[in-house]
């Protein structure tokens, strides 16, 4: 239980004033603008949008500035903001096959229609700190080449034509799209809800879980079938207008994992799929998400559930870093009364112990919340 504690108002006010001062840093150094954060720390902004579950670069940049670079605090701020606006509705599902691709790689086929396109990537950099960047840099203009007009089918579409990979589950008109921001989680959860949960899940948590599946805790033999990054058009069916109106484009990263499946009595062996999708350039996130999406399909695919990454209740209940930080950090709040009662109990037990009774003390009660 918590007890209202009065008397801290002035200390709190001054603490926030000090926070604002510290946030500003050295006042001789120019202040960061949101355009600088959005443009130059763009992957951090992408992560805040993804896990804050709100596509708005400017707000995410503001959150990062306000949070002094603390990603989870920034994500928390964005989540809180979204509660202040009404929801007009849901978009038409985006078509990542029509993406204006800026990066697209496959580790399964060398020669894919449309080609392997590296785009702006850290891959193949030497991971050596660059002293030139410390001095302020004027990078060269990007190289250009003639763009090909060839379409870029998803690798899974190519495999799907030969039936070598399972088809994606299609819309069941009778079941509405699950939304965990409207309905509390319940288990078992369908894949739409799981993907929504994973999309906003903490990247580090998913990375560790995905890694655990690779190390043998619920192995699923993945290949990165395709990763693509680029801009996708969004349309919204506006009732007042009478047709689906274009809203503009969002940047998305998509990962298609291709996994083994040995088949069953009724189904021929084929590859199965794990799927990852996130706002912005979020490659590690979508790869981890796709690994965990696949491992969470254990129940559906009749696989033995032996590892944490296959346990949907465990994964979905602990994936949200705003919830997690709320519960971990609430331990900072005054628990004076709880602690006094624990202290009282402990003193009593110690007294009994020192009186050298032969009885074994009762186990301590669990710490109250």
């Amino acid at each position, binding site marked *: 239980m918590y007890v209202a504690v009065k008397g801290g108002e002035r200390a709190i006010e001054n603490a926030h004033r000090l926070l604002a001062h510290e946030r500003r840093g050295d006042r001789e150094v120019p202040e960061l603008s949101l355009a600088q954060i959005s443009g130059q720390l763009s992957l951090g902004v992408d992560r805040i949008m993804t896990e804050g579950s709100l*596509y*708005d670069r400017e707000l995410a940049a503001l959150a990062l500035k306000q949070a002094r670079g603390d990603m989870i605090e920034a994500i928390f701020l964005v989540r809180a903001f979204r509660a202040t606006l009404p929801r007009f509705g849901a978009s038409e599902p*985006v*078509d990542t096959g029509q993406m204006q691709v800026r990066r697209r790689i496959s580790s399964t086929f060398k020669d894919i229609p449309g080609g392997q*396109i590296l*785009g702006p990537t850290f891959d193949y950099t030497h991971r050596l700190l660059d002293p030139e960047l410390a001095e302020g840099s004027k990078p060269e203009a990007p190289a250009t080449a*003639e763009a090909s007009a060839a379409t870029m089918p998803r690798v899974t579409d190519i495999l799907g034509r030969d039936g070598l990979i399972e088809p994606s589950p299609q819309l069941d008109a009778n079941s509405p799209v699950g939304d965990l921001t409207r309905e509390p989680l319940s288990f078992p959860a369908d*894949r*739409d809800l799981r993907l929504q949960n994973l999309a906003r899940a903490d990247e580090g948590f998913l990375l560790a879980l995905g890694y655990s599946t690779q190390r043998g805790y619920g192995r699923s033999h993945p290949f990165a079938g395709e990763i693509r990054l680029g801009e996708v058009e969004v349309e919204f069916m506006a009732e007042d207008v009478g047709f689906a109106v274009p809203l503009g484009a*969002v940047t998305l990263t998509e990962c298609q994992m291709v996994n083994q499946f040995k088949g069953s009595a009724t189904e021929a062996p084929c590859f199965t799929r794990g799927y990852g999708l996130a706002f912005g350039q979020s490659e590690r996130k979508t790869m981890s998400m796709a690994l965990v999406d696949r491992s969470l399909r254990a129940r559906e695919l009749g696989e033995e559930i032996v590892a944490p990454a296959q346990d949907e209740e465990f994964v979905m209940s602990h994936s949200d870093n705003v919830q997690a930080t709320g519960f971990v950090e609430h331990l900072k709040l005054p628990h004076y009364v709880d602690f006094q009662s624990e202290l009282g109990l402990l003193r009593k037990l110690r007294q009994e112990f020192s009186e050298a009774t032969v009885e074994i003390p009762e186990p301590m009660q669990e710490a109250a919340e």
Partner: protein
Amino acid sequence: MKADMTVADENGKQAQRKAAMAVLAHSDAAEIARRLEPIAVPAYENLREPENGLVMLRGRIGGDGAPFNLGEATVSRAAVRLASGEVGFGYTLGRDRRKAQMIALCDALVQSSEFSVAVEENVLAPLRAAMISERDRRASETAATRVDFYTMVRGEG
């Protein structure tokens, strides 16, 4: 026959409005405002005051399957009516209410026989050209990072 013509006209008009909205949604608010300047915009009223809200963005399982909720985006919307009666709607990603209102105004002007040509020439055509040129620039920068594999032959063929 006449009814068919009407339906086709209606679809054509709708496609035209949608194409205009797509260009406008991709453009900067300041650019739209600048392009609108030379047009003697007729009187209009706000049918819906410009407002901010959210749209839940949906993806598809596996990229091509059943929809799921990916996360929300900020959206602005507005609706206007010209004195001559045309009603225009504006929707765009982001929190720029003024931009939504300008899109609504353009949508109304596109439907007006008096202004549709002026809007196309002064606003939509240059913004479309800028959008395409920006898209082409990105595409050509991207194309330069495409891998051209070559095979190294070992031993004697």
